[in-house]
């Protein structure tokens, strides 16, 4: 090897700020995901299949589906986010990029925020975009579908943010996937209740602004607090490996 390109020891110059580092993390995750596009489809297919199970397993009657459609879609979306979370840090952990991420001279919670944002764009957002089609299939009316999509749009980032904590805590453990679900599902319940509650209120003609504001508050809370918890959890898991 020749070392011509290397400068000598001196204080580090032209440092990158946190925003630049976040952008790089986000861009890398999106690029890696698009190199393996098949994996992006999996949560979506899972989402569709879970929704399909309800008419088959419970009842295909229009009245039942109309009433339970929003709940079915929310549960299916929740499960498919949960399913995708196991990969959030695992590949990075296995190939060592996670170590390098933690050692970047940047606030770790911001880097995790960027990673989780990438996760949402790659899994949560496609679910939101697919929801209207499935909404029609379960006979929801136009207004309900619009409200449902809105609640999913606000709610799925919360699912990703909270889920990242569980993914970080179970990193490197045997049977991490099941454990992750055990830890995270209880924390998802409030989001689920308000997500479906909003649609139900809309169907009865009640005003939904208050519900949406509350979900917005969940989102703000999750975005501001969850990355700190994920960062702490990640350090603990890496320290143990």
């Amino acid at each position: 090897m020749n070392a011509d390109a290397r400068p000598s020891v001196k204080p580090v110059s032209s440092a990158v700020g946190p925003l630049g580092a976040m952008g790089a993390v986000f861009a890398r995750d999106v690029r890696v995901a698009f190199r393996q596009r098949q994996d992006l489809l999996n949560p979506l297919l899972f989402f569709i299949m879970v929704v399909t199970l309800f008419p088959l397993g419970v009842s295909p009657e229009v009245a039942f589906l109309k009433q339970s459609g929003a709940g079915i879609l929310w549960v299916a979306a929740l499960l498919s986010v949960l399913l995708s979370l196991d990969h959030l840090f695992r590949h990075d952990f296995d190939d060592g990029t996670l170590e390098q991420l933690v050692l970047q001279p940047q606030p770790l919670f911001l880097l995790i925020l960027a990673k989780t944002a990438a996760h949402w764009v790659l899994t949560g957002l496609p679910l939101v975009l697919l929801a209207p089609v499935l909404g029609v299939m379960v006979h929801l009316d136009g207004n309900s579908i619009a409200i449902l999509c809105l609640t999913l749009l606000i709610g799925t980032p919360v699912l990703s943010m909270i889920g990242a904590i569980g993914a970080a805590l179970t990193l490197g453990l045997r049977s991490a996937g099941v454990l992750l679900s055990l830890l995270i599902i209880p924390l998802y319940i409030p989001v689920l209740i308000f997500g479906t509650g909003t649609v139900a209120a809309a169907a009865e003609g009640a005003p939904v602004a208050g519900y949406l504001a509350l979900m917005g508050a969940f989102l703000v809370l999750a975005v501001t607090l969850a990355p700190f918890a994920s960062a702490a959890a990640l350090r603990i898991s890496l320290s143990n490996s």
Partner: protein
Amino acid sequence: MSEPLLQAIDLECERDERLLFQNLSFSILPGTLTRVEGPNGTGKTTLLRILAGLNDAWSGQLLWCGQPRMAQRESFLRNTLYLGHRPGIKPLLTPMENLRALMAGRREIADGALARALEGTGLSGFEHVPCRNLSAGQQRRVALARLLVADEPLWLLDEVFTAIDADGVRAIEALLQQRAEEGGAVLVTTHHDLDLPGMQRITLGTGGQYER
């Protein structure tokens, strides 16, 4: 005599109810090359991970430029380069993309410099091939290319010679020595028979009897 970059005082680490080391004190001065040695399972990798800031299950004191490291986190991370067992290379990305991503959180660096670094590790022609199509040795070389653009004063290198051919080993040895002469500090663990002039050693033995 210059100030030590990193100073360890009475380090102690216990792992899975086994004492790995105790009362371990040493200083890493600029311009030195240090080898951490000891049989398997004596905590070489653990020590390096502790020094890098990845493992925090230790007690004792670590000083960075004379100050407690905890209080100097950003300065420490900015000036330290750690290469672990796992190379930190994404198999789906090309060497160029990998190198860019690894440097991205640290400092701005021109693509030309990165390309020259890859060329320096013998990877010219492979810049745009996904890393999963490269051999294990070539993947390690992608990680090692970072050393050619690194300006961090402290390098912590865990098993750098793994999967590297004889020519590569000689080149790395030369690089490490040159780095020390320039005033950088290098800490390595290796099973390869490394013996360079002026090299310091930190020897880890088998863990002592557990007693408090």
